């Protein structure tokens, strides 16, 4: 690890040796990471000085840090200099010209998921000029949101139009110094979503990146910030059940949520990045930092995630329960097949009085995959009457995969009540035989059993997402038995 660091540092210093200066007119910054690249990104986006300073502070800190190694994950060393950190939104002439040029396997998956025809092309990255329904739908939505004073835009746009909000809240939940990947993200993030819901407003529709007007690809270092002001409510959907094309291997996103007094944020994710092939080659490394601050009294944040993609998932959506009577929830389904690895869970930090948290985690492992639940419930001395309930279930398919549960509990208030339940089960040959004897195919049987296992989590997804997620669960496990 330290050898790698030396290398990063010396490479980072090389720019001066070669007198390299990034051309601000260029569409793509040269490969590699150094201060110049960060200045380039910031200049490209016309950012204010304070934001550039913030990025640079993060970058300097990152150089002095090492990749964390505590997670139960194995992967070859990541060469951070062998990547592009900025490229302008892709022109429509790149990528496949028509669906005929798209990998038939991908199309087959869209078919199974029931993705509407006109959306398939866009998802597969086909250059199409047709105006999608979604764009016109988005325009209608936009008017409605504006009427209510809700801001829903890209992070770049928010920096320009609402700098005071961004400056106040950016990094206030996940500071740039938080962890290796969040620090890297702070230095080089290119875009993401920004949401602000004014006091007392209930956002009347699910917000999703899909409907955002300038929904160009935000790339590997996404930065999302959602603020729900007093007494407001918003439900946000991230991701898509359909597998998206992406050439970038490393993803390190940061999501920050802030809920003020009596506000509620529901954040749902379906993550289906490329998991690598059946031999474990390729696939996205997904190192995400997601955290919500229940800053106000009786505020509420709930995370719901369905993680089926990526070769590596490193992700712990967390809640800081600062406000008295605030509530944090975490509902998770993580599926790993073939050679996928997931180390995921949550942190619930109880600071205020009578704070409550609830965790339901369902890990499903098949093939040679490894699935770890890692959770922390921490009760601080002032959190009088804090309560937590954790339910952590693992399901194994076959006998070459692994499931691991690592709950950490730290309570410094004797009135706190913390409950933890964990189970591990297996889809047995007997169950499959029984189902097949009734005429179900093995795949139908696995899908029914797994969906039954996940039901407590899936029911927290917004309706239309839930139906897609069920199909996705089935598809992710195809070929996992027999």
């Amino acid at each position, binding site marked *: 690890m330290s050898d790698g660091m030396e290398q990063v540092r010396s490479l980072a210093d090389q720019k001066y040796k070669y007198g390299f200066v990034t051309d601000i007119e260029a569409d793509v910054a040269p490969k590699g990471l150094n201060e110049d690249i960060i200045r380039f990104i910031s200049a490209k986006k016309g950012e204010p000085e304070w934001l550039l300073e913030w990025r640079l502070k993060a970058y300097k800190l990152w150089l002095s840090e090492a990749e964390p190694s505590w997670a139960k994950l194995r992967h070859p060393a990541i060469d951070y200099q062998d990547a592009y950190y900025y490229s302008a939104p892709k022109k429509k002439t790149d990528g496949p010209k028509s669906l005929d040029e798209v990998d038939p396997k991908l199309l087959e998956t869209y078919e199974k998921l029931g993705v509407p025809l006109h959306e398939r092309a866009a998802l597969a990255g086909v250059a199409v000029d047709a105006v999608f329904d979604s764009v016109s739908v988005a325009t209608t939505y936009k008017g409605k949101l504006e009427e209510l004073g809700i801001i829903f835009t890209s992070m770049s746009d928010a920096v320009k139009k609402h700098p005071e909000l961004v400056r106040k809240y950016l990094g206030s939940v996940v500071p740039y110094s938080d962890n290796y990947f969040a620090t890297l993200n702070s230095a080089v993030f290119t875009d993401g979503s920004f949401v602000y819901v004014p006091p007392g407003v209930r956002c009347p529709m699910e917000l999703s990146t899909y409907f955002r007007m300038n929904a160009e690809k935000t790339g590997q270092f996404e930065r999302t910030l959602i603020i729900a002001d007093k007494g407001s409510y918003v439900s946000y959907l991230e991701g898509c059940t359909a597998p998206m094309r992406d050439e970038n291997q490393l993803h390190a996103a940061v999501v920050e949520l802030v809920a003020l007094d009596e506000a509620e944020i529901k954040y749902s994710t379906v993550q289906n990045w490329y998991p690598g092939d059946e031999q474990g080659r390729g696939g996205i490394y997904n190192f995400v930092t997601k955290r919500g601050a229940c800053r106000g009294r009786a505020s509420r944040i709930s995370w719901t995630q369905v993680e089926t993609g990526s070769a590596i998932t490193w992700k712990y959506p967390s809640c800081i329960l600062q406000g008295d009577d605030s509530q944090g929830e975490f509902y998770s389904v993580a599926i790993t097949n073939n050679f996928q690895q997931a180390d995921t869970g949550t942190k619930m930090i109880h600071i205020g009085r009578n704070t409550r948290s609830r965790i339901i985690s369902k890990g499903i492992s098949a093939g040679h995959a490894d699935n770890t639940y890692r959770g922390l419930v921490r009760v601080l001395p002032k959190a009088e009457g804090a309560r937590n309930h954790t339910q952590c279930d693992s399901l194994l398919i076959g006998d070459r995969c692994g499931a691991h549960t690592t709950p950490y509990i730290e309570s410094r208030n004797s009135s706190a009540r913390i409950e933890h339940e964990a189970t591990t089960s297996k889809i047995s040959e007997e169950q499959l035989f029984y189902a*097949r004897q009734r005429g179900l195919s093995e795949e139908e049987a696995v899908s029914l059993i797994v969906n039954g296992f996940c039901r407590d989590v899936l029911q927290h997804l917004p309706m239309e997402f839930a139906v897609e997620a069920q199909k996705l669960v089935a598809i992710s496990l195809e070929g996992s038995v027999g």
Partner: protein
Amino acid sequence: MLEIRNLHASVDGREILKGIDLTVPAGEVHAVMGPNGSGKSTLSYVLAGRDGYQVTAGSVTYKGQDLLAMKTEERARQGVFLAFQYPVEIPGVTGVNFLKTAVNAVRRSRGESELDAMQFLKLARKKAKELGVSEEMLRRAVNTGFSGGEKKRYEALQMALLEPSFMILDETDSGLDIDALKVVAEAVDAFRNPQRAMLVITHYQRILDYIVPDKVHVLAGGRIVQTGGKDLALELERTGYAQFVGQAA
């Protein structure tokens, strides 16, 4: 309907079925009796196509087709039904959901239209009522937490819903109380018709009072050691299997 010829089968390398010959013509009910461990359930698993039950010799013809060449689910869709001696629990999967998927899989393969949720529920409620299965049980996870007798009724309900043409009842009577036995056995008997055939595996002749068999076979040591009419069951109840156990060894 079903023709078993010189069937040999092993589990984990151990031969359990040692040459079974058995023919069940359409319209007939055959009872199979025999001591514990003689291979009755093994025979039912081999016919249903369970993984790990290896056929080492012999053949099985079902409606003129090679049954052993068909996949497990294919056999089910073609009308082979096994009421399990020990039905397995499937937590998290509601009966309604499971049975609807099963019924539609079978209907699809018969070229019939699939039932939607409403149509299925209507059908399931009707059949459940006939067999004394409560609505509450339909909403619960398959077999999960069911009593022994409830599981057996539930097997009968599945048979009624799937409308198979060849069914194997593996000790469906054990675990049922006296009244339930009557309800279930009468329902099964009402299911008899000239196009259907059944194999009724049992230890007790009582169920055969309701489902009167055309033939009774004694399976011991992996072979059919005796075949007779319905009176053979009564005789066995008196004499036990001692005479056959010696003979098979």
